């Protein structure tokens, strides 16, 4: 699986848009980019997955440039409840039957 690098922590104020960037220089042709969210004392929760360009759902947007060596998770108008750890994972679509390999993630703190 491609190695990912993301900031250890970020702070933002309520109502702001938050962008978390993940670097994955060694992404393979058949790899997808997937983001998970984890609240304290809870299991990780799938947020969004994409392959190229832009993907948007009711929770977030995922921007992937043409070279796919990085990706940006965008959370619009964050609230206190968005305080969590966000993980960027890179691997084959649906990860097949493979395990998910989590890094340290980005700890996002929303300030009132």
């Amino acid at each position, binding site marked *: 699986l491609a190695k990912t690098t993301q900031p250890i922590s970020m702070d933002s104020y309520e109502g702001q848009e938050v962008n978390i960037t993940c670097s994955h220089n060694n992404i393979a042709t058949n790899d997808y980019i997937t983001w998970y969210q984890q609240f304290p004392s*809870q299991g*990780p929760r799938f947020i969004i997955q994409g392959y190229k360009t832009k993907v948007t759902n009711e929770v977030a947007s995922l921007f992937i440039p043409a070279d796919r060596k990085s990706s940006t998770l965008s959370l619009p108008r964050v609230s206190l409840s968005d305080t969590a750890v966000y993980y960027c994972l890179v691997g084959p679509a649906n990860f097949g039957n493979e395990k998910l390999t989590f890094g340290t993630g980005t700890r996002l703190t929303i300030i009132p």
Partner: protein
Amino acid sequence: EPEVTQTPSHQVTQMGQEVILRCVPISNHLYFYWYRQILGQKVEFLVSFYNNEISEKSEIFDDQFSVERPDGSNFTLKIRSTKLEDSAMYFCASRDGTSGGAVDTQYFGPGTRLTVL
């Protein structure tokens, strides 16, 4: 929305005792997983299970660990002789495996906090 459930939410045990952590995956899901997260550390894969057998296991999943799907709905993780270092959050996850081209993600349960004294 269907969800994975786990019981108990918190288990306290003495070192050397056996514990069984229980999970009810989402109905009709075919793939099942156990992960653990030691306090302040990464989420680590333990084992994956499909078609009533282990598909893959990590180095952590040694002989003291076992998994079982006893009745078609529950999925259990047994630790035969607990050690202090087994103290962690244990997460169960399940995946559909039949969604074709759609995103087929792993859904995680809320976890069981295991404390070994």
